[in-house]
């Protein structure tokens, strides 16, 4: 091992270690909430978490838990359990794993803490609504649905009005469950911290524009946790500030995440949670660095719609409504092409995720558009993101190898 490799290894440890510490503390807080008198809300990954933070409600993310289940390779068993409960094997594997988990307190942390309320924002899919209805029946707790109409080509006035009214209804809902008023000053502070964390997160992702890139999308999948779960807290701001410094230092030292970065690739869709290391090593062995991805950048995409005037509550709606998978396929193509240019990408790796229709249906059109507009090749690999039983390692390997050979040929 060279000096550089060793130092890369030890620097990586720092941030990763801190993340694990923070997430462990966060889950402990959540699981002991009853004792500390705090309320727990389960919320969707695209949901408006800032009001929860402002009201000292602990936000818990069944989807983040789903990712952990996948990464711990416990998804297959839990999904099978869900099928035994009568849920079709074609349904989202996050949902299946979580629903089964509630019943058996399974998963890597012995199950999630019981929610006091459920907050479901459908800006990521319609599945979450069904999933949260199931949990609302199971736990018998209040459910708030934040309905963000699909923005095929625009954020229509009707939708704007509807979303804004729901922001008010959301606050009333939270105040009702918690039996206390929202502190509007605190809300603004949390809003400010949220925007700051998003800016820092985007800056971290931007460091991948460098050659070589100091990080891969697999690093991004790992460091994503806080911008999703604790957006609006000082903790998230501090973490990303320090992570950014670390990445900037690597850039200054010329350290690349992939030692011999020859090819730069863009990843599309959620990760295959139970094969991250395998994928990472596979691409690295081909001297390919997945420099960016459409998934992790979703959590700073709302910056496009952030306004400097007006209260956070008044302006947050558009960012939530125009989440990456709540917009038309042609709008997604625009963003993908932007990323191809920004990160100077040679190839496109698309994960056709059976668990996520809004993200996956339309991929074939996006693939063709990228080929047509930028002339870069792409490969499609298929899985259920948390259920290993539908994944074929040898098939996937063949496709990746063939794809890299194709890129190699282009030179």
């Amino acid at each position: 091992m060279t000096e550089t490799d060793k130092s890369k290894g030890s620097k990586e440890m720092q941030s990763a270690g801190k993340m694990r510490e923070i997430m462990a503390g966060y889950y402990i807080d959540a699981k002991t909430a009853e004792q500390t008198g705090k309320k727990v809300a389960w919320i969707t990954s695209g949901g408006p978490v800032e009001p929860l933070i402002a009201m000292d409600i602990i936000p818990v993310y069944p989807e983040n838990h789903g990712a952990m289940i996948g990464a711990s390779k416990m998804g297959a068993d839990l999904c099978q359990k869900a099928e035994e409960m009568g849920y079709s094997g074609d349904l989202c594997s996050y949902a299946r794993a979580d629903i089964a988990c509630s019943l058996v307190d399974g998963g890597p942390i012995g199950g999630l803490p019981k929610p006091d309320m459920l907050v479901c924002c459908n800006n990521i899919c319609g599945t979450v609504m069904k999933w949260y209805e199931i949990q609302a029946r199971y736990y018998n707790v209040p459910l708030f649905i934040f309905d963000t109409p699909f923005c095929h080509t625009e954020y229509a006035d009707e939708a704007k009005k509807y979303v804004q009214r729901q922001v008010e209804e959301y606050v009333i809902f939270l105040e009702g469950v918690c039996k206390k008023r929202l502190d509007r000053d605190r809300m603004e502070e949390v809003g400010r911290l949220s925007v700051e964390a998003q800016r820092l997160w985007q800056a971290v992702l931007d460091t991948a524009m460098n050659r070589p890139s100091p990080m891969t999308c697999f690093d991004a999948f790992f460091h994503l946790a806080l911008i999703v779960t604790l957006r609006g807290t000082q903790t998230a701001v501090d973490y990303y500030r320090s992570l950014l410094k670390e990445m900037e230092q690597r850039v200054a030292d010329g350290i690349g995440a992939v030692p011999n970065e020859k090819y730069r690739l863009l990843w599309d869709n959620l990760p295959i949670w139970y094969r991250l290391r395998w994928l990472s090593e596979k691409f690295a062995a081909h001297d390919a660095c997945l420099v960016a991805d459409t998934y992790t950048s979703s959590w700073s995409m709302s910056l496009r719609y952030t306004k400097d005037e007006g209260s956070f509550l008044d302006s947050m709606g558009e960012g939530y409504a125009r989440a990456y998978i709540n917009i038309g396929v042609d709008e997604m193509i625009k963003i993908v092409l932007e990323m191809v240019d920004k990160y100077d990408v040679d190839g496109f790796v698309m994960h056709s995720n059976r668990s996520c229709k809004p993200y996956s249906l339309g991929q074939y059109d996006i693939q063709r558009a990228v080929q047509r507009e930028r002339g870069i090749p792409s490969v499609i690999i298929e899985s259920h993101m948390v259920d290993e039983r539908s994944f074929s390692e040898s098939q996937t390997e063949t496709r990746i190898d063939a794809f890299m050979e194709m890129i190699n040929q282009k030179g």
Partner: protein
Amino acid sequence: MITAGIDIGSITAKAAVLSNGRILGSKVAFTGYNAQQAGTDVFDDLLKELEMDASSIEKIVSTGYGRNSVTFADKAITEIICHGAGAYYLNSEVRSIIDVGGQDSKVLAINPNGTVKDFAMNDKCAAGTGRFLEVMARAMESNLDDFGILSLRSGTPSKISSICTVFAESEVISLIAKGESREDIIAGIHESVASRISSMARRVGVKEPVMMTGGVARNIGVVRALEKALGVSIEVSEFAQVNGAIGAAVMAVKL
């Protein structure tokens, strides 16, 4: 009263004769291309063996995929009902039946009076059926008859997670290439079959005593793997393969 049951499956045709509650005899033959002919043949052959005449059979019930082509039957009843009746006849305590054939598998929940309470079927997917075992035996270059016994030799079954037969086959090939032991892989294959079947079984609910029927019941490896997967003990009768025909003969008594 003497009755007969004829079970025309897609691969094998079975016949059974019951006399006053006793099994006089049974027979298995290949169905082949002509289901109607297969029904006639297996019935005639059984009668010949038993030195009986067709006129001594009072009622005949046909079952299985080809049940409607047995024109000389008095009634056609589905194989689910007949498997239930057959297993209940063999053991009236039985409350769950797992039937695994060459091309399909089913799980039945039985009421105390022998009627079917609920059922689940897999007839669209090779995984969890005899077909899966055939494909894997070929991949392992093993005799299908020894396959089950070989699986019992391993204490550390390999993990095969794919639910698709085609994917699983390539998983097995990778395991062979990786140098995992033959017995471990074969044991893993049997656990995989048991996993698909037990998953379906739990949807219906499993209550002991449990009986396994159908051709795959002769595979001791699958029986043991199922016992392990479900945490129950499973009874396999010597009449497992002809259980459908026996059940049909039982149903014929009630006509």
